[in-house]
C-alpha cells in the first residue's frame, strides 16, 4: 500500500496541484481534500499548500483557519498526524496555533521570488528525515508575507528545543527573525515553511530536486510508524 497524502484545496489555494504532483513523484498517492468538508478520507498525512486562501486579504491564513476541514485537521495534528504547511499553509498553521509565531509582511514590503539556499537545522521531523543534519539545500521562495515573527521567549524556546527546521542562508528574503524559514511543533509531526519544496522536484521545472526529500521523508516516516504499529 502506498501512503495516501491529502492535499487541502481552499478557495484561493494555488499550489495545490503542484503539491499533488510532488506527492506522486515521491511515490505516494495524493488525495484531494476540500476545505468545506470535515472528512480527512483516511489519509496518512496532510499538506496545506501555497496560495492565497480566501484571498488572504486580512492576514495570510487568518480566514482559512476557520474552514470546516481545519476543525478535524487541528485535532488530528494534535494526535500525531503528519501535517506540512507550505507558504500559505505555514501561515494557516500559525494562525491555527498548531505552530507558534506568525508570518507578517516582508520587511521590504514586496512580493519576492527567488531560488533560496536553506540549511536543514532539524532532520528528525516527519518531513526532514531524508536530509542530513545541517545539509544545505536550494528551493524556491515566493511570498509577500513571509517574515516569521514571534516574541523573544518563543524564539529562544524554539532554538533551545531544536524546533527551527529550516534557516535562510545567503540572505534573508523577507526579514524573518533569526533567519527562520520553517519550524516544527514539539512532537515533530507538524512542519511549516515559507519556501516551496513542491517546486523543486523535477529537472524540467525546478532549479534543484532538493524539495523531493521532504515528501520522501514523510513516506518513510509513515512506513516506520506503520511497521511499528503492526
Amino acid at each position, binding site marked *: 500500500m502506498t501512503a495516501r497524502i491529502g492535499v487541502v484545496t481552499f*478557495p*484561493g489555494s*494555488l*499550489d495545490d*496541484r*503542484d503539491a499533488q*504532483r510532488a506527492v506522486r513523484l515521491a511515490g505516494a498517492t495524493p488525495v484531494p481534500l476540500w476545505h468545506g468538508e470535515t472528512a480527512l478520507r483516511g489519509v496518512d498525512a496532510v499538506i496545506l499548500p*501555497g*496560495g*492565497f486562501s*480566501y*484571498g*488572504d*486579504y486580512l492576514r495570510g491564513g487568518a480566514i482559512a483557519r476557520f474552514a470546516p476541514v481545519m476543525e478535524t485537521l487541528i485535532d488530528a495534528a494534535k494526535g500525531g498526524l503528519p501535517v506540512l504547511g507550505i507558504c500559505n499553509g505555514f501561515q494557516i498553521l500559525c494562525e491555527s496555533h498548531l505552530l507558534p509565531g506568525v508570518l507578517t509582511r516582508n520587511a521590504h514590503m*514586496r*512580493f*519576492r*521570488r*527567488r531560488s533560496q539556499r536553506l540549511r536543514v537545522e532539524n532532520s528528525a521531523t516527519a518531513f526532514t528525515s531524508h536530509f542530513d543534519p545541517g545539509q544545505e539545500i536550494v528551493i*524556491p521562495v*515566493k511570498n*509577500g508575507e513571509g517574515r516569521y515573527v514571534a516574541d523573544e521567549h518563543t524564539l529562544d524556546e524554539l532554538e533551545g528545543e531544536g524546533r527551527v527546521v529550516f534557516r535562510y542562508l545567503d540572505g534573508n528574503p523577507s526579514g524573518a527573525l533569526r533567519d527562520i524559514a520553517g519550524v516544527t511543533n514539539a512532537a515533530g509531526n507538524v512542519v511549516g515553511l515559507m519556501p*516551496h519544496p*513542491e*517546486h523543486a522536484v*523535477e529537472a*524540467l*521545472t525546478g532549479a534543484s530536486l532538493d524539495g523531493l526529500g521532504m515528501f520522501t521523508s514523510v513516506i518513510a516516516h509513515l512506513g516506520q510508524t506503520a511497521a511499528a504499529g503492526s
Partner: protein
Amino acid sequence: MTGKHEAADVEQVDQELNLDTVEIAAKTPDEVQPYAELGLRDDEYAKIREILGRRPTGSELAMYSIMWSEHCSYKSSKVHLRKFGEKNPTNTRMLAGIGENAGVVAITDELAVTFKVESHNHPSYIEPHQGAATGVGGIVRDILAMGARPIAVMDTLRFGDAEHPDTKRVLPGVVSGISFYGNCLGLPNIGGEVVFDASYQGNPLVNALSVGVLPASRLQNKAASGVGNVVVLLGQKTGKDGIGGVSVLASATFEDDATDNRPSVQVGDPFVEKLLIESCLEMYDAGLVVGIQDLGGAGLTCALSETAAAAELGMYVDLERVPLRDATMEPHEVLASESQERMLLIVNPSKVEDVLAVAEKWGVLATAIGTVTAASPEGGGGRLIINWHGQTVVDCPPGSLADDGPVYHRPIKEPNDRALIAADRAETLPRPSTDAELRETVLKMAATPNLADKTWITEQYDDMVGGNTALSMPDDAGVLRLDGTGAVDPNIGPLGIALSTDGNGRFARLDPYTGAQLAIAEAYRNVAVTGATPIAASDCLNFGSPEDPHVMWQFAQAVEGLADACAQLGVPITGGNVSFYNQTGMTAIHPTPVVAVLGVLDDVRRRVPMGFANDGDVIILLGETFAELSGSEWAWSQHGHLGGIPPAVDLAGEMALAAVMKRAAEVEHVSAAHDLSDGGLAQALVESVLKHGVGARVKLPDHADPFVWLFAESTARAVVCLPRGHEVAFGALCDEHGVPWTPLGIVDSTVGGLEIVDHFQIPTGELREASEGTLPRLFG
C-alpha cells in the same frame, strides 16, 4: 436590514420618477440629449434615431455611446485591420481567429492553445496598481471565455524616463498590480518587457497577455443561441466601477450633485476571479453552458449585445435582477458598469440549477437575468429588450450596437520630415575608439535602465505556480509544459509552448512599417532560439490619436508591415487589441506595435535555455552583422540620438535561424542560446555571463570592427553554445539552411567574466554591479 430597505425604496421611487423609458422616449422626441458629451457625433446620433425610429432612452444612449466608441467599435482601425484577415497565411491550426475573445490554435488533434495581448494603458496611469491589476484580470477572462484554463500571463510595459519622479509613482504601482493580481490568481508570469522612454512619460503602456489551454472539443462560443435559453450573470456584484463618461447622463437627468467624482477606476479582486475560473471550467466540463462571454470594457452593454448579435437572435433582460453593490444605481449605470470578475453565461433551462450549484460550490454569485428570444420574422436578428422594474428602458437591435457601429476612413498623411529623419543617421555619431572606451561603453550600456537587469521587477512575479514553467525570466521566451501530454512513450516528452512579446517604439518611430516587422521578427526569434516552432501571433497596437493624420499614417503603415511579415513568416495574427489616444497633449507616444509570438515544442525537455553554463562549450554567432546603429540602444543611451533608418528586416533569415534552432534543439547540438536584440552582441554576452556567473573568452573575427560587432542591432542573429564536438555537425546544419555562422570563443569559468580577446576584460562582479544596480537604485 430594514433600514437599508427603506432607503432603497425611497431611491426607487426617485428613480421611477426620473426613469427614461421607451414609452417616454417615443412621446418626447424633442428632449435634448447629451450625446455630444458622450462622444457621439451629430450624424451618429441621427443614425441611432433612425435605427430606433425614435430618440434613444437614456439607457440606450449610454449603450450606443459606449459600443460606438473607439475602444469598442474599432471605428478608426477597422478598415486597416482587415489587412490581417486578407494577408494572414492559410493555416489549418486556427480554430478561432480575429473577432473572437481570443484566437485559438490547435496544438494536436485534441489540444488547443489560446492567447491574446490587451492594453490597459490609461487606467494604469490614473491608478497604477488597480489599473494594471485589472488589466491582467481582463485578459484572463478573455482566455477563460474561449473554454480554456488560463495557464500563464506576461506583461509588456513602457514607462517614461526612468529618472522622472512620476515614473517612481507609476512603475512600482503597475508592477505591484500585475504581481498582486497574477500571483493571487495562481498564474505564472513567464516574461514580458520593460522599456523606458520619455515619450511615454504622460502615457505609460501596460499591455498584458494571457495564454490558456483547452481540449479542442471544449472550445466555447459567445453566441446566445437557443430561443428560451437562460441568461446568467456570474461573479462579482455590479458597482459604479469605471462608469466614466456615462456619468454625463446622470448629471443631465439629475441635479449636478453627488454624481461627480465618479470613479473611472475599477478595483480588482483576484480571489473572486480564481473562483470564477474554477467554476467556469467545471461548468464547461459538465457541458452546462451554451455560450459565454466575459464582461470587460463596456460591461453588460457589450456582453448582452454581442452575445445576442452573434446568435442573430433577441434577448430579454430584467435588469433589476443584477446583484448590485450600490442600491442607488440607475439602469444606464448598471449597463455601463465595468465591475470586474463577471461572466455572462447562456444556459439551457434544464441546466440552470446545475449552474447555480457549481457557482454555490465555489462561492460565486450566479443570477438568471434574462432569456434568449426569437429573431424578428422580418429578419435582421432579434430585439434586445431590457426592463427595469417592469418598465422597458431598452428596445433595440443588438447587431446595431455590436456590429453596425460607425466606420471611419480617417485622413492619413505621411509626415514630411521623413527624409530628414532618415538622413540623420546614428552611423555617423562619434564612436568609442580605444579599447578602454569600448569596455566603458559595454558597462555603461549594461547599466542603462533599458538594458539593466530587471530582477527588481520580475522577482515580484511568481513564475512557477502551476509547476509547468520550463523557462521564464530572464530567458528569451517563456516556456510551459502542456500538462498531461506525452506521458506514454518515454522517448516522447511532454509538449511545450513558448511565448515572447516584443516591440520597439524607437524603430517604429523611425519607420512604422519596418518597426512593426522588427517587432514580430524579434518575438519570433525569441521563441525560435528556445527550439520552438513559431505558429501564431497576437498584437497590441499602441498609438496616439487617430484624429491626427500622421498618427493614422503610422498606424496604417504598422498594420501593413505586420500583415506582410505574418504572410511571409507563415504565422497568422489570431487576435489582438488597438489602443489609440496614447498621448500627452498634442504629443503622441512613439508608435508602439507590440507583438506576441506563440511557438510549440514537440518535446519540452529539449527547450534551449539562455546563458553560459558549461565550461568548454563553443560559442558561435549566427547571422550577419552590419553597421546598423540607427535607432539602437547605443545611439539613444549614449547620444540621446534617434534618427536614420532602423536595421533591415530579414524575414527569410529569421526563418532559417528558426529552422536551425529547431533541428539543433531536437538532436541536442546546442546547450544554450540567446537572441541578439537591444544592445547587440555586447549585451547578449553580458546577459549570458550573468545568468550563471560563468565567464567566456570571445575573439572577434580579424576583419571585424569591434565597435560595430559589439553594438550594432542587426536582426536575425543569435549566440549559441555547443558542447564540444558538435561544431562540425552544427556547422553543416547552418550551411544547409544558409545561416551564416562565426565561431566566437568558448565558455570558460577561469576567465571570471567577459574577455574580448585583444581588447578588454570585465570581471563578473563589475558586470553584475552595472547590470543589477540600476533598478534598485531607481526604485528602492
